[in-house]
């Protein structure tokens, strides 16, 4: 067992597998995790604000930016996480496997960190493909795992801090006891001598022995070239996976968006759709005889589409920005929500409940704080890009507000009700 673990470490030895490289890639990955966590938390609070929380409505593209960044950083984690795991992979075969109870906890926390990280970015990616092959709810698990990951990250940095501090800056010499981990001597020479000291010159026989002999006969990689090549590969991979997908939100990259799950301009009236009328079960029959009901206390008023069209119209240019990271600029025309709120006498500080015609769905009924209700850009939209709103975009009327995720831009809007304490 002991021999096998040593041989595994020796076979895996590589000039890029050293603590300096682990620190260099680790801090990039850590930064990407923090960006994902921060933007994810922001998106979470937009959807489930804490009591009394007021959220920013400017700049209008704020959510488009934060959520686009969330997905871009998440995709960048694929090459970064794989690179980090590549660097530290020999540690899996450390001997003895467990030195003490604390060491057992440390290894268990590392295993959890690795497993949760891999799962988090994988389900995050596949969620953007609208595919849910796992046996658990995505939103809740993605949120809980975010806390697990950020906790694991702090724990991991805490455990490894002496190593991180020592290898933070590039130095010619990292101090005693680390020679073999740095640029000077290949790892395999030291690990090899260790194996030889333990077991003399006898080598394992049988299949394992032949495998090891085969690996030993492989020419070693040039150190400097390997390290530069590794860093270049990681850099190019991050740039590539981001560059070829980010066009779904970042317009300048639209031309090279060949792998993004969404494409700008693809959809009815040039805007992608997240939930179709069919999925929401909203048919022509359901919208027949539609009116928009606005309620405040005992006062209730209903408006037909024609009545809304006769009210003062406002045109705004706002992005529809999805939790899945895509976004699309569009021109919307309709009635200011605050005008409707004023008609039923709702005050400046009133929050509203927005209800859709759809029968089911997590976002059938949502709430909107006063910062959005009073915003001059917040509309009950009747037109999109110069045409009557398509059924897929929420005809007869939908909400559009600055800086909110698409799931809260209620389509097939049927009822707006003031929340009175």
């Amino acid at each position, binding site marked *: 067992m002991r021999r096998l673990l040593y041989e595994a470490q020796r076979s895996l030895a590589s000039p890029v597998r050293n603590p300096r490289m682990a620190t260099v890639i680790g801090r990039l990955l850590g930064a990407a995790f923090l960006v994902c966590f921060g933007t994810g938390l922001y998106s979470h609070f937009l959807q489930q604000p804490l009591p009394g929380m007021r959220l920013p409505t400017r700049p209008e593209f704020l959510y488009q930016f934060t959520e686009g960044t969330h997905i871009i950083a998440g995709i960048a984690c694929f090459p970064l996480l794989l690179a980090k795991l590549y660097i530290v992979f020999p540690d899996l075969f450390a001997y003895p496997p467990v030195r003490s109870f604390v060491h057992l906890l440390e290894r268990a926390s590392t295993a959890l960190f690795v497993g949760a990280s891999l799962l988090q970015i994988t389900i995050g990616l596949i969620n953007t493909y609208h595919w849910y092959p796992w046996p658990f709810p995505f939103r809740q698990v993605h949120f809980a795992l975010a806390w697990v990951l950020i906790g694991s990250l702090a724990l991991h940095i805490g455990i490894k801090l002496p190593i991180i501090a020592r290898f933070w800056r590039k130095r010619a010499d990292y101090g005693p*006891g680390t020679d073999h981990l740095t640029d000077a001597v290949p790892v395999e020479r030291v690990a090899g001598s260790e194996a030889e000291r333990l077991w003399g010159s006898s080598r394992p026989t049988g299949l394992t022995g032949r495998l090891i002999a085969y690996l030993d006969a492989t020419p070693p990689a040039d150190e400097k070239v390997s390290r530069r090549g590794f860093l270049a590969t990681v850099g190019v991979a991050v740039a590539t996976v981001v560059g070829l997908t980010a066009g779904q939100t970042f317009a300048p990259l639209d031309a090279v968006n060949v792998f993004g799950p969404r494409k700008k301009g693809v959809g009815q009236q040039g805007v992608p759709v997240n939930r179709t009328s069919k999925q929401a079960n909203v048919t022509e029959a359901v919208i027949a005889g539609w009116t928009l009901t606005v309620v405040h206390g005992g006062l209730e008023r209903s408006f037909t589409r024609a009545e809304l069209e006769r009210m003062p119209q406002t045109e705004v240019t706002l992005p529809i920005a999805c939790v899945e990271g895509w976004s699309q600029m569009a021109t919307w025309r309709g009635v200011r929500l605050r005008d409707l709120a004023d008609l039923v006498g709702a005050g400046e500080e009133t929050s509203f409940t927005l209800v859709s015609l759809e029968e089911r769905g997590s976002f059938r009924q949502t709430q909107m704080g006063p910062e959005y209700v009073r915003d001059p850009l917040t509309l009950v939209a009747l037109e999109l890009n110069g045409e009557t709103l398509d059924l897929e975009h929420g005809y007869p009327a939908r909400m559009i507000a600055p800086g909110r995720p698409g799931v809260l831009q209620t389509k097939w809007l049927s009822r707006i009700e003031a929340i009175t304490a």
Partner: protein
Amino acid sequence: MNQASTPSNALTAEQAAPRPGMRVARAILILLGVAGLAWGAWVLVDTVRIARLPGLALWVGAAIVVHDAVIAPLVLFAGVLLRRAGRRLAGTVVTVLQGTIVLGSIMTLIVVPEIVAQGLDPKNPTVLPLDYGTNLAVFWVVIAGVATAVSAALYARNSRADRRLSL
């Protein structure tokens, strides 16, 4: 056994006599980390039905197994095979080839689930609207082309350098 010569134990000397600032920082980070983990566990049991948790644990475990027992060994052997096959090639060229294969593989890893998802029940034509299979094939052709061009340039540069040396 000489512990100091294994990488994981190389820093025992420093760990034994840490600077006070370091010790405080580590304690704070470890406490914060444990608190984050505990909060995550609480959020999980609070929002996800208990019956779903074994499935989640299985997926976390499977993620580790897929990486440690499938991806990592494949990478090791691909690297070994490439270095053996590339005995006669310059180190830089082998590295360029290695990088190209890694780049293509990571992109493939990201795009294959996309192609699978596209093949499933297409409820919404604005989701996954592109021809990802063709795009992936073109991507491989392009990076193979770039790798060939870079390798050729490296060879040209090396042979020019050789000629200068022999003068």
